[in-house]
């Protein structure tokens, strides 16, 4: 009987990539339920569609690249990418938006760069930016909360709207959609209204950000804290992003509260929380050293604020993440931790 002679260690914690991905997916689910509560079945339909497309694209690319299917299809990373991208697509967007976006994310954003572990950019954000640039109208047709419930539009109707472009009561997507709170804020600020005027006049806004969005944000936050608690993600990136937004947001808010919304608006508005806990923390494309992760998070926070306040797009999370993805290898190089036994303050 020949003995096995693998290199040490001879035991393993049993941790797998799929465990990590599944925990992240689980942490997303409360927010998805909350989202559905406010904005109807669209997200759930989109998510299911996205997951199917993601698995199909992944399988196709693995076949083409002659990689084993089982370990990679089972690792959960494609599913997570799909879910995150679906989260960023307006809930009533036509089906082909989701299909195109997810396929692009997986095929171009992930596999053409070498697949899991080798993609320098966050695939979900690659898909999102492609969609935003190519289909700006579809990608900005959001809805005010509860509108579907008020119109008594159920699951089957929503399916019809997404797949057949069939809207009940002679409605159209234009009639249903509205800007997101971030959009509205940006447009109205452009009209020289003050922040408090805007927030009071528009039913889109809730206590400190957007109605409905606030709650989705809260559930995302809870999920994110759970991930940190479970050590699935480290605290560095989320804290750096949120902290940076808080500091810069407070600074401008205190200088001129009429023109600059409160820091809480920035933190709970738009996709900040989603980005901070779920997107920017994608390990493959993020910085990997502890100090580097803080730098990386601060960078994302700054870019988000700059683009929101002075740039051309209402929300900037995707751009911020992709820009910092590019910087990650350099950041890693300059933020190597001090190794045991090496002089302090050298690196």
């Amino acid at each position: 009987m020949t003995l096995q002679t693998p290199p040490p260690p001879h035991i393993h914690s049993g941790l797998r990539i799929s465990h990590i991905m599944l925990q992240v997916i689980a942490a997303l689910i409360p927010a998805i339920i909350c989202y559905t509560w406010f904005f109807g079945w669209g997200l759930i339909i989109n998510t299911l569609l996205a997951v199917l497309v993601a698995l199909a694209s992944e399988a196709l690319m693995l076949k083409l690249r002659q990689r084993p299917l089982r370990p990679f299809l089972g690792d959960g990373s494609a599913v997570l990418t799909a879910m995150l991208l679906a989260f960023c697509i307006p809930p009533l967007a036509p089906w082909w938006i989701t299909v195109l976006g997810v396929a692009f994310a997986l095929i171009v954003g992930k596999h053409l760069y070498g697949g899991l572990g080798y993609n320098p950019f966050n695939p979900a954000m690659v898909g999102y930016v492609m969609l935003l640039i190519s289909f700006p109208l579809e990608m900005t047709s959001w809805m005010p909360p509860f509108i579907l419930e008020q119109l008594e539009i159920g699951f089957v109707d929503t399916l019809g709207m997404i797949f057949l472009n069939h809207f009940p009561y002679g409605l159209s997507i234009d009639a249903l959609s509205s800007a997101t709170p971030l959009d509205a804020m940006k447009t109205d600020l452009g009209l020289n209204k003050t922040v408090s005027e805007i927030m009071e006049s528009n039913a889109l806004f809730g206590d400190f950000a957007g109605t409905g969005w606030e709650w989705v944000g809260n559930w995302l936050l809870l999920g994110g804290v759970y991930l940190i608690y479970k050590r699935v993600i480290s605290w560095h990136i989320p804290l750096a992003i949120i902290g940076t937004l808080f500091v810069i947001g407070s600074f401008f808010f205190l200088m001129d509260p009429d023109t600059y919304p409160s820091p809480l608006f920035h933190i709970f508005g738009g996709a900040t929380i989603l980005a901070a806990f779920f997107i920017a923390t994608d390990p493959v494309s993020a910085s990997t050293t502890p100090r580097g992760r803080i730098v990386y998070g601060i960078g994302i926070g700054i870019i988000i604020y700059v683009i929101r306040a002075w740039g051309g797009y209402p929300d900037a999370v995707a751009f911020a993440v992709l820009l910092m993805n590019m910087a990650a290898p350099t950041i890693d190089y300059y933020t190597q931790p001090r190794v045991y036994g090496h002089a302090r303050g050298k690196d």
Partner: protein
Amino acid sequence: MHRLFQFKGGVVLKEHKKDSTALPVQPAKLPPTLTLPLKQHIGVAAEPVVAVGDEVLKGQLIARAGDTLSAPLHAPSSGAVIAIADQPIPHPSGLSAPCIVIETDGEERWRPRQRSVFNFAELSAQELREIIRDAGIVGLGGAGFPAAVKLDPRGHEVELLILNGAECEPYITCDEMLLREHALEVLAGLLMMRHALNAQRCIIAVENNKPKAFRALHEEIQNTGANVELVEVPTIYPTGSEKQLIQVLTGKEVPTGGLPIDIGMVCHNVGTAYAVYRAVEFDEPLISRYVTVAGSVAHARNLKVLFGTPLGNLIEECGGNRRTLRRVIVGGPMMGTAMHSDTVPVVKTTNCVLVESVMHDVPLPSRDEYAMPCIRCGNCAHACPVNLLPQQLYWYARARDFDKIQDYNLFDCIECGCCDYVCPSQIPLVGYYRYAKSEIWNQDAEKRQADLARERHQFREFRLEREKKERAERHKKKRSAVSKAGGDDKKAAIEAAMARVRAKKAEQDSAPKNTDNLTPAQQRQVDEADRRRREENPATSPRDNKAENTQDRPQ
């Protein structure tokens, strides 16, 4: 209460220590043959001083230290040397190396004691070190560094002597059992070590999962009033690693590329202290040790094992089935080495034999066969007690970028395996680091050889040049001078005669010292063996070779 510090990272492991501590330690059965590798330590291999056919007594020197950084070997039991040849050794490569094989006679006849002073207080530090060196004692914690060298302060002030009883690897309990059964002897050994080092303070560190060992030590320290601190350290792997233990106890770090002695500290294993005690007090060389046998065996336990005993014998003795073995690991599950065969012997550094059978009755959860790509999750960096970036090391090891990997401090890696253990992609990280290290060593060696070749080449040019000149010179002289050939011949004859005299004298001088105190009967045996050897094979007998070599090396 001693103030403790933390090292970064580390992992908490399932201990699996209960199984092998239930039974008291007993001597392992004497095997028919003992196979003793000449190199069981760090440094130069030992040189045999016996020949095939020699009768040896238990404790008799069979190979002497090859150098200062080396350790002698002693016969673990009485019997006859039946081979001095390459045999499989417990090494990851599965290769063979020179060994002395002894056929045991079962009589366990000891060689007579060679020393009369057994009270260490009467010995100087240097004498103490000599005894320890001559007893063949090396670090028993796993590294096998010659203990006498590590007990020489060489001009350093030794502020702290740490006795390492942490034993942080799962399954291993030999140090724990030693402390439970021989706390007083370990303590005595520690005091001897302190004497040799002239250390100011002594700490014994024990992980807090061994309350019985701790209590035993505590009692003995109380009873004897020894000025030794006993410290319980948290059970986090790898607390027992020298550098990490120093950090936990003192908050200080050993400078990279340096040794603990550079910061005034020395760290020894509890087993080494026990061996020192036995050597000093009883004139017993290091011929056996405690070995934990654990895993897929019916009775996991600790045995007192003579060096050279095949692992398979221990496995069988503890109720394991040699035919269903899947993995035989020497050492712990984190840093141990999987053996190619269970016939390799126990050596000085073997602390544990961990067995896994194909029946899977003992779960040693191993990595998946198929490693996924690194997802840069940073788990490894978080777990690394040295604060390296294992994911970067892995990246550059794969890319064979051996310059970059050294920028990322590959050689600070202690191969503890924490990174590997927590990696969700189940990448054999330590395997990659070992590969990279050996590649770099090979490259260095090649470079050295290339340098040497270049030097040789340059020297050759230089020599040819010079010879040409000399020849020209001689030609000139020859033509002008008278021949002195006759005188030269006579001088050569006298020189040859003197060399013969010197050779004879050297042979007499180098008569084996270990046979000085022999009884007449033994002396006859030895003489007989000598004669036989000379007759049989004068050229290849190692000791004769040695005598030849030492001829022109005045002592």
